[in-house]
């Protein structure tokens, strides 16, 4: 508990001290100033430069059927820099209509800029200098294209600034202990072995593994506007996964993940073993479950499934930068102040929320990757669209960032989700949700509705080049019969659809919320996100058959017996 207290203290203490104790930040500041001054003599001087350094230490341990398969430590310092030429109203990131050139199309940052692990000033500065030179040259080339297009032809777009003006911030957190002081690696090696050994008890399992990934991040950010930030974060992410072979050759997986800021706050070994046993029981049932046929009709998405569902169909369409691009479907651009969801529903994105209930939230951060404080944003209020998730790429009427500019190390920032919270002002009990489902099934003449109990993840397209569909990948799906028969577990189902149609079909939400913890991948890389949602009742969903494997049972028995005690 002491360790946890220290961690929270470090993470959220404000030490607004203009005199930094951070050697690396000082070195970055010196080089930033030198570059900015030197480049003012150029034909196209930059009006903004920033440096972002992700100092990440990782430890990963994993085991399969009781055997340690990985125990790995790593550390790197990755630099990302942005150089902007022009001014806030029109700069090198401006999208040139119909060319794909601009904010979404001008490529990645210099991902090869690896900084020294120590604070060797000369080595750090030379890396910053090289990266700045490269980015500046890219910025000039982009700016010339932007200027030529806007001056000669006009791009026909409304006057919206290319970069928002923000108030500079200074926020320096003291250093955290070394990663080795936050985790006992040997103890975790034993733990993942012990837990994964319980998968040996079922001879039909194809795979059975347990892994822990713990990372400690120290993020440095500095820009020419005066913002200086050093902030800490830790992520302890644990995964349990197993798969079983069905009679028809399909390989059926189940996954369970856990998140806490510190490994010590993850479930204890007994609890994990219980979850492994439950997972094996579910897999055995899944093995016997019938394959589902394509379906269109009413469904309930349990809380975790609803979280992923909202993240995919809704969350990616409220990310502001997409709505600026003429390559994007811009689902919600013209729907501000219009009703887009059932009026009982409110949707919030809140990176400042560190816990829900007593559970840590992976999508939390103090400042985003552009040095803007992560703010609570009410995106939808009682069904009415009010706001978007904004980085420093403004939209008309949304000219300021609300701290949702995010990226993984080495990649340029775009607006991303954080902790997505779905609330209902008319929540229904699970019993009443079920009654609604059955009533609607009868109305639609359906023998059964679907209950999506758990999912592994999903994906969606928002651009104009392909259909704006989403796909949520359930792992545990039940048929709920209208005639009172017990729920029937089925397999081989993917939940699909198109967003606007689906939004109109969300008709009620449950009382109890649950957290889905995930890593979201998009153009700015993988960022940690959570979705906190109640169960949703949807009047009509659509499913399709999941891709099926055609594996054969193992020809020989799996070596090593069935009990953890005989694995060695």
């Amino acid at each position, binding site marked *: 508990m002491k360790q946890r207290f220290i961690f929270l203290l470090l993470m959220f203490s404000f030490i607004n001290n203009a005199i930094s104790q951070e050697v690396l930040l000082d070195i970055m500041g010196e080089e930033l100033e030198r570059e900015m001054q030197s480049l003012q003599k150029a034909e196209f001087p930059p009006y903004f430069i920033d440096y972002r350094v992700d100092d990440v230490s990782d430890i990963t341990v994993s085991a399969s059927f009781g055997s340690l398969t990985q125990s790995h430590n790593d550390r790197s310092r990755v630099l990302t820099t942005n150089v902007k030429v022009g001014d806030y109203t029109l700069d090198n990131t401006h999208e040139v209509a119909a060319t794909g050139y601009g904010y979404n199309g001008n490529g990645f940052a210099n991902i090869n800029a690896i900084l*020294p692990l120590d604070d060797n000033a000369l080595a750090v500065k030379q890396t910053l200098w090289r990266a700045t030179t490269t980015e500046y040259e890219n910025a000039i080339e982009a700016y010339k294209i932007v200027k030529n297009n806007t001056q000669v032809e006009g791009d026909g777009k409304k006057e919206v600034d290319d970069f928002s003006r923000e108030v500079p911030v200074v926020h320096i957190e003291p250093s955290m202990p070394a990663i080795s002081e936050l985790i006992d690696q040997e103890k975790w090696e034993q733990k993942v072995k012990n837990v994964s050994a319980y998968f040996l008890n079922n001879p039909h399992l194809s795979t059975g593994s347990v892994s822990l990934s713990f990372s400690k991040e120290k993020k440095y950010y500095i820009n020419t506007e005066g913002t200086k930030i050093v902030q800490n974060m830790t992520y302890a992410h644990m995964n349990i996964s197993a798969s079983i072979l069905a009679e028809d050759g399909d390989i059926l997986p189940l996954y369970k993940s856990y998140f806490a800021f510190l490994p010590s706050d993850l479930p204890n070994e007994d609890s994990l073993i219980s979850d492994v046993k439950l997972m094996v029981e579910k897999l055995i049932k899944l093995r016997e479950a019938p394959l589902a046929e394509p379906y269109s009709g009413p469904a309930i998405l349990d809380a975790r499934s609803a979280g992923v569902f909202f993240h995919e169909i809704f969350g990616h369409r409220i990310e502001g930068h997409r709505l600026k691009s003429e390559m994007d479907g811009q689902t919600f651009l013209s729907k501000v102040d219009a009703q887009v969801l059932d009026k009982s529903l409110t949707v919030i994105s809140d990176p400042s929320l560190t816990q829900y209930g007593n559970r840590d939230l992976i999508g939390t951060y103090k400042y985003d990757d552009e040095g803007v404080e992560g703010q609570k944003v009410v995106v939808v209020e009682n069904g009415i669209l009010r706001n978007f998730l904004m980085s420093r790429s403004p939209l008309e009427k949304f000219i300021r960032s609300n701290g949702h500019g995010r990226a993984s190390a080495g990649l340029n920032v775009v607006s991303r989700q954080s902790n997505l919270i779905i609330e209902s002002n008319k929540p229904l009990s699970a019993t009443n949700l079920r009654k609604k489902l059955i009533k609607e099934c009868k109305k639609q003449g359906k023998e059964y509705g679907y209950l999506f109990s758990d999912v592994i993840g999903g994906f969606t397209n928002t651009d104009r080049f392909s259909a704006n569909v989403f796909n949520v990948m359930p792992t545990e799906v039940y048929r709920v019969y209208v005639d009172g028969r017990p729920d029937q577990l089925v397999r081989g189902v993917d939940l699909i659809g198109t967003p606007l149609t689906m939004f109109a079909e969300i008709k009620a939400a449950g009382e109890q919320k649950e957290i889905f913890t995930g890593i979201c991948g998009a153009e700015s890389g993988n960022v940690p996100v959570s979705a906190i949602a109640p169960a949703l009742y949807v009047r009509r969903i659509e499913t399709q058959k999941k891709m099926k494997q055609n594996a054969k049972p193992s020809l020989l028995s799996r070596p090593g017996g069935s009990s953890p005690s005989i694995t060695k």
Partner: protein
Amino acid sequence: MINILNLSNLYRFLFTIPLALFSLNTSAQELGTDLALEENKTPDTLSDYNVIEKAMVDELKRSMEELTYEDYERPFFISYSVNDIDGVSITSSLGAILYSNHFPVRNKAVRVLVGGYDFNDESLDVAYYNDPSSLSEIQIPIEDDYYGIRRSLWFSTDAVYKSAAKLFKENKQYLKEKNIGLKELPHRRFAKAPVINLEIKNKFADPDVQQLESLAKELSGQFSGESEIHHSMVTLNTFNSTNYFINSEGTRVKYPYSITSLQIYAEIKTEDGESIIDQIAHFGFTPESLPETEVIKNDVKALIKRLKTLKNTKVYKDSYMGPVLFVDEAVGTIFATSLFGYDGLMASNDISTRDNYQYNGQFLDDKIGNKILARGLKVETMPKLRYYNNLPLPGSFEVDAEGVVPRDTMTLVADGNLVALLNSRTSTSENHVLNGHSNANQAIGPGVVKISFEKSSSVKNLKQELIKSAKELGLPYGLMVKRIPYGNYMGVNVYKVSLEDGSEELLRLAQMKPLTIKSLRRILGGSSNNYVFNNQSGGSITSYIVPDALLVDEVEIEGSSAPYLGNKILVENPVGVKE
């Protein structure tokens, strides 16, 4: 069918070692007589094996005895390979560590063959889909965990065998449908190889990571005062690995080896901002087998000096076709790219027929006995030679990835005539001879190559020959090439050699047409002194012992007439900036 799993980027380096060697028509008896093992031990009982070997042996035995799959044929051959690796990887710049990691890695390779030596699942490419590893995987444990290792091998064996069994059935069906005899159908055969029990004992010293970091910092720190050097980096990798290999024929190998590489990269820019890069590379077995630190530091000084010279050197702008004198590293580079590139002195895997013909290169399978190189040129492999003139030859190996021991010396080319091609246990031609040169990347590599020229001469005399030949051709000068950094023929630095007094003028950015085997038919002379050149390509290291000068006729070199229109440097390099 082979399945190689658990390959990480870090591990790929280990494949620098060509592991397997083998020949087809040479009988097992013949090959066996060449075995010259440092230690040869046949275990009496399984208790003589360690945990890894025991797990491999037990699972292989069970698989051979019990594997059956519906009405498909049973396997006739299984092999397992496990590499147990202790690696250190360090990157440094300007005296600072950018990356440092000390890591254990294990990987495995499982091969299951169905059918027979003459015709099996690997013989044809008739299957449309084949991916035994696509479903899931049980990784091999990093601990000596008997059941864990067996489970990992079991999982792969099951997948590989099922796929191999189906493939073999398809291959048989194809043969039947085409109504053609096996002799008329181009196909791959699997050669019989001698059974060996080889255990090479070698106790690794634990890598001293701190000491290695200090070395990397010391070397990279040499650039700290060099304001003209735009970028520099030192990369040091060292791997201690033990390869365990067994097969169902009874072969068992335990082969420990170490590889260390040190690469130093530097970049300078001209006043116009044009980039010029160069590098130093040293390869050895352990870090101790690298040159003394002071020697490397002198190399770094020479590298810096070279780049500074090139910065103010003019660009070569002429068009030249005539004799070129290659010296030192450049000789190694041209032999590496011409003789052991894709279509070099290696047996081909090509089984094209006229209806599915695919041009994959100019293979030499049918040219045994023909003159393919210049008269007097000799090419030999010496895969077991670990040192030459006290210099380490890290390309060397004792046994290949298929558990075949190569001969100490094998002649590939004698007096310009092709004698043999390097090969693994897979053969597509009667001309292929099993000689044990398969590496773990499913490729064939020589390991250590010695190239000599009968009519050897001194560098001085060869330079005179260059001048004489250029004069005879009416050329205004001769050309000399000393280094081809990174094997990049598009940016070669050349020396114009005056026909009057032999003086040399350095010019940069010449574009040389890559030399092929055909180009090496026109060698005018070679030096009597030898040069050791280690070349890392495609994850493998080959050590070359080559003449330190070679005069080649009819080399095409073009100048670069295009202007450089890149960006000038606007901000001064912080290295050298006064605080």
